[in-house]
């Protein structure tokens, strides 16, 4: 027998059983005689067994007092054994639980509604931001185009003097129907003719509703004679000029033609 085998045997036995096995079993006792370390270990096991046995015998007579016995027997006499509890398949929830359940569902519904509203508002704000950025971008591009085409006309006269009278843009123009309506489908010439038929205004630029947003103002201006059609007329020409928020001229009409 090896030391490891002795340990395996020892693990399966209590100290007292081990000591009995060593006393009775030849292989165990033979190994203990040969191996000093196992002999010492076995001696310590024997001491531990004896010490535990001492504790066991010292406390062997200890037991619960008569008061405990009286209490237990009294409980048996008065109550007896509780009847066997049969498991109920599904108990109905108490009213309080149902009420709290109602509030719980209500809370879930409120949270869900808040989420939906939040998503809707978020999407809308996002859309508005996109529109604004697209507008500013388009204004920047259209502004550069207008500067190329319209500015020479406006700046050609040396004295463009705005009148004191200032009007708001006509409803048709403010809504974008006159100079700005359907700009993408109309050529500038067509747009000019159709618009001038309606209100006398001539569109000065193509206005996409996305680009030409914001308020417009109608400013009556006195144009120098050089700008008038006949060119030779000495009388100044009065014109209503529709100016956008960006300062560019949207449309114009001659008043004292």
């Amino acid at each position, binding site marked *: 027998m090896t*030391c490891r085998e002795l340990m395996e045997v020892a693990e399966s036995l209590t100290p007292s059983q081990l000591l009995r096995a060593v006393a009775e079993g030849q292989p165990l006792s033979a190994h203990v005689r040969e191996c000093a370390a196992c002999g010492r270990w076995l001696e310590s*096991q024997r001491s531990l067994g*004896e010490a535990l046995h001492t504790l066991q015998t*010292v*406390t062997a*007579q200890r*037991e*619960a007092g008569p008061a405990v016995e009286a209490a237990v027997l009294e409980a048996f006499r008065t109550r007896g054994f509780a009847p066997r509890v049969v498991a109920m398949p599904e108990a109905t929830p108490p009213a309080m639980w149902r009420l709290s359940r109602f509030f719980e569902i209500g809370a879930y519904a409120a949270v869900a509604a808040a989420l939906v509203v939040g998503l809707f508002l978020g999407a809308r704000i996002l859309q508005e931001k996109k529109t604004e950025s697209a507008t500013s971008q388009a204004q920047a591009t259209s502004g550069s185009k207008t500067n190329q085409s319209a500015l020479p006309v406006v700046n050609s006269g040396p004295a463009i003097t705005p009148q004191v009278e200032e009007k708001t843009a006509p409803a048709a123009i403010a809504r974008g129907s006159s100079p700005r309506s359907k700009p993408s489908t109309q050529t500038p010439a067509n747009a000019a003719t159709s618009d001038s038929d309606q209100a006398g205004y001539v569109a000065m630029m193509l206005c996409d509703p996305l680009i030409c947003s914001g308020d417009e103002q109608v400013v009556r201006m006195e144009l120098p004679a050089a700008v008038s059609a006949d060119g030779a007329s000495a009388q100044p020409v009065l014109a209503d000029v529709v100016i956008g928020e960006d300062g560019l001229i949207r449309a114009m009409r001659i008043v004292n033609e």
Partner: protein
Amino acid sequence: MLAEQTDEQLLELALNGNEEAFTDLYRRRQGPVYRFALHMSGSPQVAEEVTQEVFLFLLQRGHDFDPERGVLGAYLFGVARNYVRRAMEKSYSEAVKTTPAEDDDPNLVTDFDPVRDIARRQTSKAVWKAVLSLPEHYREVVVLCDLQEQTYADAAQALGCALGTVRSRLHRAHEMLMKKLQHTAPALAGFSGNAARCLS
């Protein structure tokens, strides 16, 4: 006649309302339950409370005991173990003692030889102190297997673990106990030497 009945048979009679059977069952099993709680907690007060709670629990849930799953003694130890644990959690500083209760019990077994009696008391006190200082799951197996002389199978039922677990825990607990006793009580016979294991 009742003395010849097993614990399970006594319980069966008690469940049918036989007070004498219940009393006999109580007197037969209260001592081991009390000593288990006493060895585990070191407190006679806790041991009395646990004993009472265990039998009140039996009155409440006696119908749930299934003899096919083990013996009644192990079942009661299992219940007692839970109550001891609960008592320790409830008042940890009071319930868990690093030193055992003083032996003021007049029923203690004493020796006619006063010197030997003192030596026995010192030994038991040192060992009990070492047992109380063990971690709970090691203390349980020592109390059940060494002090209550339960078989490994019954201890496994009481502790709700595998038999091999009981075996390995007990072996480890013995090693820990020997180390503790080497430090705390080297004068005791057998604990002064080196008990190193040889694994050749």
